[in-house]
């Protein structure tokens, strides 16, 4: 499927809320996330483990398992709201218009079926071709993702392939239905560095050829720099910064983004130890009031006791931080949506 670009985004997530009712309490894994992906563009979603990036992706695929549930928001894709789509219509989207590949190529393929048959299954589920034809198409797909001797490999079981090969098989399976959107959840994290680069190159090449959009989830800003057009930075279930790739790298606004960028080791730079963001992610069962990042934030101010909204600090550049667009602490009057008295009281309590 190729569609005309009429300006509406391919995927628009609006105020998505995915909660997990665990025995210990409610975990708001995704809490009011909004972003959109343009046709053919690549959006990078970055954040630490547990920030909700994978849950966001699984929410789009409607693969959230109990006790998790999408409790609010919309996921608009191709004019349909995926959140309340009937199961059988959702199955038509899943693996067809939207495909997904996962972090663990070692365990993501079924060990008792051959690679070829697993790809052919995806094709025959959506493509209307079955049997030998689907199998032939599966071998074609394996060739496309750069697997040598594809016909023989198609007859092999996953355990006979290396991790990089298996991820190629996963990509072949995901792309066998020509999806408009590929969701890649840390596709290279489990792979050797050299294989990582190969897989990224492959994804780039296939993106050009198939003109598909990619939602690339990773904690690796290097991967984002390599692949993405736009970036969403997530922290504790919320979007904290969002813009195009250049802005995030050249003018990051949120202190968390600063921290992420500072923690990338650079070649040719002599440093005794890596920069780290101090502290740990807050306990999702007991999130603090106010800005969720303030306890780890080098710029924390009294006003951070009040949760900052996600606001546009420059055209197309959103940040969830009280710092002014220039990166300065706001004066009391500038803090939008807050009561000066509350800010003063907060300031007092911090001083004590």
């Amino acid at each position, binding site marked *: 499927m190729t569609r005309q670009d009429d300006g509406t985004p391919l995927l628009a997530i609006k105020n998505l809320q995915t909660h997990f009712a665990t025995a210990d309490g409610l975990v708001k894994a995704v809490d009011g996330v909004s972003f959109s992906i343009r046709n053919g563009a690549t959006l990078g979603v970055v954040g630490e483990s547990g920030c909700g990036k994978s849950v966001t992706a699984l929410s789009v*695929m409607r693969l959230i398992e109990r006790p998790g549930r999408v409790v609010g928001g919309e996921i608009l894709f191709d004019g349909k709201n995926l959140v309340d789509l009937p199961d059988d219509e959702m199955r038509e989207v899943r693996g*067809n218009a939207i*495909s*997904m590949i996962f972090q663990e190529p070692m365990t993501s*393929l*079924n060990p*008792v079926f051959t690679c070829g048959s697993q790809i052919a299954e995806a094709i025959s589920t959506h493509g209307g071709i079955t049997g030998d034809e689907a199998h032939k198409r599966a071998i074609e797909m394996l060739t496309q993702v750069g697997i040598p001797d594809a016909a023989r490999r198609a007859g092999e*079981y996953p355990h006979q392939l290396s991790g990089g090969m298996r991820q190629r098989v*996963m990509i072949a399976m995901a792309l066998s239905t020509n999806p408009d959107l590929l969701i890649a959840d840390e596709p290279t994290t489990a792979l050797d560095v050299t294989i990582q680069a190969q897989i990224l190159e492959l994804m780039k090449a296939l993106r050009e050829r198939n003109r598909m959009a990619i939602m690339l989830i990773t904690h690796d800003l290097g991967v984002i720099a390599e692949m993405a057009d736009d970036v969403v930075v997530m922290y504790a279930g919320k979007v904290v910064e969002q813009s195009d790739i250049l802005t995030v790298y050249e003018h990051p606004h949120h202190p968390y983004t600063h921290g992420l960028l500072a923690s990338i080791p650079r070649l040719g730079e002599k440093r005794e130890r890596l920069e780290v963001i101090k502290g740990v992610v807050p306990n999702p069962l007991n999130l603090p009031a106010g800005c969720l990042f303030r306890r780890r934030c080098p710029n924390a101010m009294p006003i951070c006791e009040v949760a900052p909204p996600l606001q546009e600090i420059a055209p197309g550049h959103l940040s969830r931080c009280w710092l002014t667009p220039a990166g300065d602490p706001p004066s009391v009057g500038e803090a939008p949506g807050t009561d000066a008295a509350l800010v003063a009281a907060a300031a007092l309590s911090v001083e004590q």
Partner: protein
Amino acid sequence: MASYILRRLLQAIPIVIGISVVSFLIVHLTPGSPVDKFRTPRVSPETINNLIRLYGLDQPLPTQFVKWFTHFWTFPFDNSAWGYSFTDGLPVRDKIFARIPSTLWLTGVSLLVTVIIAVPIGVLQAIRQYSWSDKIITTFETIGYAMPTFWLGLMLKQTFSVQLNLFPLFGENSFGKNGDILDLLWHLALPVTTLAIIQIAGWSRYMRASMLEVLRQDYIRTARSKGLTERSVVFKHALRNALIPIVTLLGLTVPALLSGAAITETVFSWPGLGWLSVQAVTDRDYPVVLATVMIGGVMVILGNLLADIAYAVVDPRITY
């Protein structure tokens, strides 16, 4: 594969010798003697001594063992290979071979019934984990697993034979109806139900656990992400993997198929190997006890080998 099987069979030889020594010692060192039941005031000590000599029990244990063990393996050609029964003087081999069909009917049919019922129950429980149906079935499984076989058998007889008069009380054939398959199945109903209820309780737990383990694997999420129907995800991708340990379990059940279900056979007077061995133990009928124990031991070894072979057949990751 062939060399693997050969190697395993060679490895089995010392194990079989070990089993023989241990079972021979246990049988002979157990208190009581085959001639005890003849010791009444009216039987002279001389007669008793003659009997002991006749059975060869006067010879040293090592001599008895070597004689028995070397003779034992000639059974394909010699019907006296396993000795003669102390109770009726018949060749033990023929006594045992005559019982095998009855035992296989009972254990085979009950295993078949068990698998056919337990696998779907386990799958159903796994896909609805912690639901009301899962919890209720779990309760029944626990009760079934805890229930003594003899008690369940007696209760079924009391209800369905004595009170409702639907099924026969004991035996495998009505008088004069030997070889009548419908009559046999009618007699099988209660003993098979007894065995199956208790086996289903265990097997469905295995199946549930195996299925739950598989359902949380990454490849199940992959299958869903392809847009497959839930039926295809569960019954193709998950079940095929969840059955692998069950197949292994089947291999390990083979010895039980032949050694019979001693308690159930005794409760229902089912003329199988299990009942025979219980009687033999009570009578201190050494040759029969030893033969049934040896069959059991060899079957355990073969069953394990069979389980390993079956494993390689159903799981492409295993090769020998």
